[in-house]
């Protein structure tokens, strides 16, 4: 046998005795990384939007927005209101979690008025005639420090009368 180089232990470094587990640890971690990529493809970590709908005799509201986000992400929400009856003063009320640690880049078309309704964001859209559709687009950017899980709500009012609404859970990954 050739002279063994210093610090080389043949049992350990040539015969790999006691190192059988190393390869399996490597394989398991690689498997976990693959699972992570597959989960990302399946939208587990956001940002693909999903649609939620609330319906009432007076109107239907469809919200198209991602419920799973990541910090720093730019994203948009589309509020699609279809009036079945005349709505004299449509007001979209969003819970504060929509704006908490989130930059609202733009709201199109601009609401007629923006106020606070007991801590919620109240966007006055104006009248919507029966059979008409009102599309509101909002562009957001989640702040890098905004991480966690919280609920957000959307409500549609006609003046002071609540027509419909729903809650969602929003998850923000770091």
């Amino acid at each position, binding site marked *: 046998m050739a002279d063994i180089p210093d610090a080389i232990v043949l049992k350990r*470094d040539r015969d790999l005795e006691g190192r059988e587990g190393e390869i399996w640890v490597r394989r398991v*971690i*690689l498997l976990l990384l693959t699972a992570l990529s597959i989960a990302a493809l399946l939208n587990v970590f956001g940002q693909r939007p999903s649609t939620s709908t609330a319906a009432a005799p007076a109107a239907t509201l469809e919200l198209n927005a991602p419920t799973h986000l990541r910090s*720093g992400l730019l994203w948009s929400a589309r509020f699609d209101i279809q009036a079945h009856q005349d709505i004299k003063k449509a007001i979209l009320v969003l819970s504060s979690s929509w704006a908490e640690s989130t930059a609202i880049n733009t709201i199109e078309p601009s609401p007629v008025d923006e106020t606070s309704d007991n801590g919620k964001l109240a966007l006055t859209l104006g009248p919507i005639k029966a059979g008409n559709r009102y599309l509101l687009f909002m562009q957001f950017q989640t702040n890098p420090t905004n991480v966690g899980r919280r609920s957000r709500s959307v409500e549609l009012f006609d003046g002071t009368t609540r027509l419909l609404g729903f809650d969602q859970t929003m998850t923000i990954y770091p």
Partner: protein
Amino acid sequence: MDIALRAVVLFAFIFVITRVIGRRELSSLAPFDLILLIIVGDAVQQGLTQDDYSVTGAIIAVGTIAVLQVAVSYTSFRIPFLRPVLEGNPIVIIEDGNPIEKNMRRERLTVEEVLEQARQNQIASLDEIKWAVVESSGKISFITKS
């Protein structure tokens, strides 16, 4: 605080990744590997500092990574039984001119690739090699018979 936390998480993640993907990938810097390295660096930077363009942010990020790097190095130096986990052990792939198939397969190395490395060390054939060892850095060390 957030940047320091992100630096810790990313440091740990990159550490695990470099230990898992194997030494061979780390030691070679072919053009494709070099481009990948830049892409990985860019992706990590964005996750690390995000929209923070401040000098304070950069100092926190670099400082945290430096401290972690020294901590890993010191741990490896002071606690010998953790050294194989933190740095890895060498693997003998050639003994007396004979390739050790099991070990080469484990490192995803072919005889041709070993010979290519050998030629770069002015070694013409396997017969001249007494020992070839894949070091924990991924580089192959050759000890010739002469």
